[in-house]
């Protein structure tokens, strides 16, 4: 029996799909913002002198990173329900995502913090800056700039993981796809359309994080490039002729 793809049947459902995409985006955005904040705290806590705190953070990170997100969602939602805590599915999904992304972000940010040369921290201490000021101005800012690509890559993975929230019937794009396909019986077409929407969401997130990166680090990057170009011509006067002939600055 030949099956023919019929996308026209889905046209009426466009607003429903778009709503689903919007919900996924919202879910991901909230989880990312809170998750990175929590992850930053965990990254610093893991470097703490108190062994108990440091060990607890390590344990948290390793458990989250070595168990499936689906199981984490089930544990959170059904587990809490079994002890009487009933959460709305959207909140439960976001909470699970926050716990998950905080662990990954903590590792990524910790690597960035460790890359800050000890000498700069000493210089900041000798200028009288408080521990908090050093953490923010001297350690975190350069660390975030360094690990920004890895961090934003993690955001994309998190958005895709949000599809698993459909398994606890949270309102997001995949759950809506499940509903639509059970109504229209056009399962293949529905999931192909939804795949396209996820792709579009990925592109949107890549674009947005790229733009944010340009804004946050733009001052530095643009000025650096422009000034480095002129500085190169200044510092090496003997080679200035070659530079202008060669062309590529």
């Amino acid at each position, binding site marked *: *029996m030949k*099956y023919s793809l019929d996308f026209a049947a889905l046209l009426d459902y466009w607003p429903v799909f778009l709503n689903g995409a919007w919900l996924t985006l919202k879910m991901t955005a909230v989880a990312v913002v809170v998750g990175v904040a929590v992850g930053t705290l965990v990254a610093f806590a893991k470097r703490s002198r108190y062994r108990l705190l440091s060990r607890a953070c390590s344990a948290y990170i*390793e*458990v989250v*990173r*070595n*168990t*499936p*997100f*689906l*199981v*984490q969602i*089930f*544990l959170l939602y*059904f*587990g809490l*329900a*079994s*002890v009487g805590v009933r959460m709305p599915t959207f909140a439960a999904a976001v909470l699970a995502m926050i716990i998950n992304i905080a662990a990954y972000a903590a590792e990524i940010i910790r690597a960035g913090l460790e890359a800050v040369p000890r000498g700069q921290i000493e210089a900041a201490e000798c200028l009288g800056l408080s521990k908090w000021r050093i953490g923010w101005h001297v350690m975190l800012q350069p660390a975030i700039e360094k690990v920004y690509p890895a961090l934003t890559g993690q955001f*994309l993975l998190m958005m*895709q*993981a*949000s*599809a*698993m929230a*459909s*398994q606890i019937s949270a309102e997001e794009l*995949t759950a809506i*796809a499940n509903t639509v*396909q059970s109504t229209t019986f056009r*399962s*293949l077409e529905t*999931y*192909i359309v*939804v*795949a396209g929407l*996820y*792709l579009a969401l*990925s*592109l949107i997130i890549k674009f947005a994080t790229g733009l944010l990166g340009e804004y946050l680090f733009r001052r530095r990057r643009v000025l650096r490039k422009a000034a480095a170009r002129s500085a190169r011509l200044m510092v090496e006067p003997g080679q200035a002729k070659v530079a202008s002939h060669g062309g590529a600055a």
Partner: protein
Amino acid sequence: MFGSFTLTHLLYLFTSIGWTLVLSALAFALGALGGFGVLLARISPRPWLRWLAVVYIECIQGIPLLILLFIVYFGLSVYGFQLPSLVAAGLAMMVYVSAYLGDIWRGCVEAMPKPQWEAAECLAFSRWQTLRLVIIPQAVRLSLPPTVGFLVQIIKMTSLASVIGFVELTRAGQIINNSIFQPFLIFSIVGAFYFALCYPLSRWSEAMENKLNVANR
């Protein structure tokens, strides 16, 4: 309704790990083959092949595995193929893994210094010979940590096969939970089993990476 968790239940969970491992191995083996093909296409001197590989990687990396799983599963069923869920899951994961592994390996190959290519060229090696004898053997060393790291991701992702009914560890947990409803206990044990599988691999990957960093200093 609230039953008790017995040894039988524990054994049932334990044996389902076998299926998790089967699917993981299948996904990894097929995905590695596919990934190698993606790698070759991605670094091909022919622009159309490169472009095709880029589109493939970008598309697969842009959609959730769950959706890919549904597409393969429902795609197969509407076109008349009644295949077991293991096959559907295996196919979907093969596509998914090939895109990610191909991209990871491309990164490793591109990290090989250009002088290696030039030296081989001067020895009159063909492009394929250069790849086979010079570039890939060295790139393999660099690719071990991220590949093992991705194997951990694969094992975790097999949990999604539960959604299309494949009885691996997560599905086994759901089945038990549906009868005795003790989600906290059951999914903690399920999580612990996954942890036991994944944690050693994660550590191994980390250890290899540290060795590489020391060697490169």
